Structure formats: C-alpha cells, structure tokens
C-alpha cells in the first residue's frame, strides 16, 4: 500500500471502532477488525516539534545535518493524529517554525514536511 494518495497521507479508518492510524494496514491495530478503509490526512498539518540530526541517515539520499519532526493532522471530529517525518532537505533551519504550517511532499521512503507558513 502506498504511503500517499494524491499528495495526502494514506491513513486507515476502522469501520467498527472508528480508530484512525497511519500508515495503511489491512486491519485495525486497536480492535483487530479487518473492516477498514482508506482515510486521507492532510495535505496540510501543524509542525508540533522538530530537531536537527548530525548523524548520517541509514536510509535516504541526503546528508547531515538535516531536520526531522512530528506534525499534527486533523481528522474527523476532534480527532488528530501526530506523524513523524523529515523536514524537506534543503530547508534553511531558521525557516523551520514550531506550530508552523507544513504540507506533505511525496517521497519514496519518508514522509516529508515542507514548511509553507508560520
């Protein structure tokens, strides 16, 4: 299953208990039901936190230092989901703002966050 669908995160919603999680799996990890459907998150989210790593990533074709973080995506009702990903490589660190708005960028390996506003 793909991580992304049309620029959004391909999450999964359980039709039995309503639990939403990412990435897509063909079962619900909360109630173990297999009655699940795709549920798209994003493309915009809020950057909750980030940090800068100075070690070489084991995967991916970018060099340190690089930033990664966790972003919050609104789901239905008052639900929201926090998902980790890398900040788009090449983004100046001073442009990264906690509570800033990010947009999902599709990637083969990672969930990538692009800063689009404060």
């Amino acid at each position, binding site marked *: 299953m793909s991580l992304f669908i049309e620029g959004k995160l391909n999450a999964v919603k359980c039709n039995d208990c309503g639990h939403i999680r990412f990435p897509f799996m063909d079962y619900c990890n909360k109630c173990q039901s297999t009655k699940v459907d795709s549920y798209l998150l994003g493309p915009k989210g809020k950057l909750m*936190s*980030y*940090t800068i*790593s100075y070690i070489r990533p*084991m*995967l991916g074709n970018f060099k340190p230092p*690089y930033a990664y973080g966790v972003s919050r995506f609104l789901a239905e009702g008052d639900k929201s989901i926090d998902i980790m990903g*890398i900040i788009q490589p090449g983004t100046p660190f001073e442009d990264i703002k906690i509570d800033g708005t990010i947009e999902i960028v599709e990637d083969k*390996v*990672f969930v990538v966050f692009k800063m689009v506003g404060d």
Partner: protein
Amino acid sequence: MRKVAVVGAGVFPFGRHDDLLYMNMGRPAVLEAIQDVGIDKKQIEACYCGTTGGVGVAHDILNEIDLLGIPVTRVENACVSGSNAIRQAWMDIALGVNDIVLAIGIEKMKDNSMATVAGATGRTQLEMKALRNFKIFSSLGIMGPPGYFALAAQRHMAEFGTTNEQLAKVVVVVNVIESLFHSFGVTDLIELAIPDTPNRKDVTVAVFT
C-alpha cells in the same frame, strides 16, 4: 516477596573503546563486583545481561572468569537494557528463585545512528529487506530514542517556555540528590552510577548556546 539488596558493584570506565571487545570491558567490571561483595564467584546462581548490540557477550564475559554452568539470559530493551537486567535479577531474588544474581549492563555505541546499534542491523538480513519495503519503519533510519526525547523537549520548550538552563538544572538536581546520598554515607551507589567523575558534586549549569 523477599527484600533485595545490592551488595556489590563494579564498573569499567565509560568511553569509546573501539579497540576493546565486550568481554574486555565486562570482565574487569564483573570481577570488581565479585571482589566488592566478597563472595566466591561460584555462589552466583544466575546472570542477566542487559545489552542491545552485544549478542552472546554475557557468555563470553562469564567464560573469561570461568563462571560457567549457570543460567545466562540476555535482556534487550534499548536504552534501559541494563536497568531491565537489574529488574530481572531483583525478581529472581524477591521471588525466591535464586539468592545471589549477577546483573550486567554493557554497550558499545558505534559511530552511526542508534539504529545501527539498536535495531536494524541486529535483525536478520531478510527482516531488513522487509523493513525497507515496509516504508513507515524507514524512520528507523533517521531517528532513535535521543531523537524522540529531543522532539518532546522542543515541544515542551515551545509550549511552556522551558529553557535550556531549566533542562540543564535537572542534572544539577540529580547531583543534589547524590549529595544527599553522600550525607547518608551511601557512596557505593553513586560511584556505581557516576564513575570517574569525582568532582561531580561541583556540577552547575554551564554553557548553552
């Protein structure tokens, strides 16, 4: 349950010992602990060894001190592997399974990410191949526990205005608690926890930029 006491301890100096094997570091520490408590090593009835990267190293260590024929169990729980070994030893004694148990905590951090030590390379090649295809866990390649803690700390700082200095003071508070231990005459545990830093009681918040 029975009461349990730490009766002896030993430590090998912390450092980047690229040229040493796990058993080279573990052997002196275990010998020191046995000497500290003043028992015959043959009185030790079981061993739990907390390590993430060191597969099979407990056997190497015990072989080097000729302590064979006891149950040896490797305990893996990331950064808390050593603490987990102590817990297992405590359970053995508290529940009356054994009277004297050896708990070891040992690790060699390599020059790469936590993933190299903790997870990914310790798994089989086939698991690694599957892991790479199972995309979300690719995050193993860029993040480790220090990264998770950093994300939590950054959020705390953004939300509550917590400063670097305040986080650093946690270390100072720990140091004050150690001083209290000193005042009660409990020095063995401190030396166990903080080796080779005799002036630690002088720790204050230092430079953060």
